[in-house]
């Protein structure tokens, strides 16, 4: 056994990596619970990869068979209902955890130098995760997903000049059809996972390289008192805490999947009216609600285009945040207030959409 270990050690630098992790220290302070958000997001991503691979064994990506194959997974395949429910629940929890991670990093100002690229890769990863959600939503080929996809892919068509081409690129044709399903399937199981794995490796490597960021207020307090910020070793102390968090996460996913199995709904019918109460997944609700308030034309442009432009500018501002923030006391306070305003806006719009019961009639 020890001969095998020596043989491996001579060829792969595992011992050096372990030693580095033993030397790495994680700061401890009153906000340090938010350090777990990224790890939990990563954990849900791993759950998605595993359950996604399992679903691939039975799922068939065509308009004629997709719904029936998911029905087969849910009703006939042993534990199929569990695997699919875990995939659906874990997807939602992953997006929730990613948002908690984003806002905690924003409020704790962890994006400051030298972590600009960590933040930027994280913003792209969030976009990819939302892409996973959008493409995965259609795959069961049910009524709600069909219309949500029709709306979602029609939004870019309001862009001047290239709009129609963009919509065709997304849909794989002029309309949402079986061709769109095949295209979304390819994006969901091949293109996005490929890009995501690469970026995730880069993101995690940077996190390991730079270590955890100490929030400015904690650093200032430590400097004033002359006492260093307390810390613990990454290996084993912090790793064990991470593992404990992941155990809680898997317990939560399992409980939700067992007690609230994910529904399948009605099969998509191209010649049925959009059902009342139609709405996208919860994480797109704030954007969906915004679209309802935007008038048909704004300043001579299509309303959807103006809204998409605003979303795009918001996304760009988020991406470039570490370069925009000059890292002074005032600029940090502005970021906190803007972040809080954005968060409040998203929560308020989501609440409005939920209260209206999706697209139901507004009296």
């Amino acid at each position: 056994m020890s001969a095998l270990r020596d043989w491996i050690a001579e060829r792969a630098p595992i011992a050096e990596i372990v030693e580095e992790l033993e030397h790495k220290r994680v700061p401890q302070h009153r906000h340090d619970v938010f350090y777990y958000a990224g790890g939990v997001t990563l954990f849900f991503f791993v759950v998605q990869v595993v359950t996604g691979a399992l679903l691939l064994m039975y799922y068939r990506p065509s308009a004629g068979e997709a719904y029936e194959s998911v029905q087969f997974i849910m009703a006939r395949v042993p534990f199929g209902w569990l695997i699919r429910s875990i995939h659906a629940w874990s997807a939602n929890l992953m997006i929730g955890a990613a948002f908690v991670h984003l806002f905690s990093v924003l409020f704790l100002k962890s994006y400051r130098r030298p972590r600009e690229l960590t933040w930027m890769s994280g913003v792209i990863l969030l976009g990819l995760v939302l892409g996973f959600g959008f493409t995965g939503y259609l795959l069961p080929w049910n009524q709600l997903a069909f219309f949500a996809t029709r709306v979602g892919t029609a939004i870019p068509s309001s862009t001047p000049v290239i709009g129609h081409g963009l919509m065709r690129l997304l849909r794989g044709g002029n309309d949402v059809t079986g061709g769109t399903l095949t295209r979304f399937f390819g994006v969901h199981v091949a293109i996005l996972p490929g890009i995501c794995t690469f970026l995730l490796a880069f993101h995690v490597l940077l996190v390991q390289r730079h270590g955890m960021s100490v929030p400015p207020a904690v650093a200032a307090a430590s400097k004033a008192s002359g006492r260093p910020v307390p810390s613990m070793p990454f290996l084993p102390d912090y790793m064990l805490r991470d593992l404990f968090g992941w155990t809680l996460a898997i317990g939560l996913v399992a409980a939700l999947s067992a007690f609230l199995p994910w529904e399948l709904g009605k099969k998509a019918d191209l010649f049925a009216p959009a059902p009342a109460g139609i709405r996208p997944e919860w994480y797109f609700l704030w954007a969906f609600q915004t679209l309802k308030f935007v008038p048909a034309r704004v300043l001579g442009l299509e309303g959807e285009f103006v809204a998409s432009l605003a979303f795009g500018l918001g996304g760009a501002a988020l991406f470039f945040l570490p370069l925009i923030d000059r890292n002074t006391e005032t600029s940090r306070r502005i970021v906190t207030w803007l972040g809080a305003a954005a968060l409040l806006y998203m929560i308020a719009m989501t609440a409005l959409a939920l209260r209206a019961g999706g697209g139901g009639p507004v009296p």
Partner: protein
Amino acid sequence: MPLPGPEGPVGRRSFLNWVLGTWAGGVLAAIGFPVIRYLTPPDVPESTTRFASGGQASTLLPNTFRIVPFGANPAIIVRQASGDLKAMSATCTHLSCTVQYRGDLGQIWCACHNGRYDLNGRNIAGPPPRPLESYDVSTRNDEIVISRRA
């Protein structure tokens, strides 16, 4: 920085960089162009449907509607309380959801973003930017026939 040498003002290094850059750019373009063209779906011309059957006229009761295929797209047929038939495209001009008729409102309604049209297809409330295309309706031996206006 180009070194003074027998190569003249261009310098061997910048020339090689130019060659390498052009080579890399050419390879990327040769890969990228077909990939982007491949991802853009080919244009399948839609058959210009002029007529479609709207099903049995006697089973469409007053103040109800029916959605039927008109070529590849849905069309909506409404029987008004007065008994008159109206037909129009069922694809909402806002973000292309399929609309329905609401008897309680006497209007065409889109569930996605609460858009509304009157029975001539005019967009009267909510986000839809354009009216729905209206079709002509006629009845032949209890079969509804809808047709695109010339």
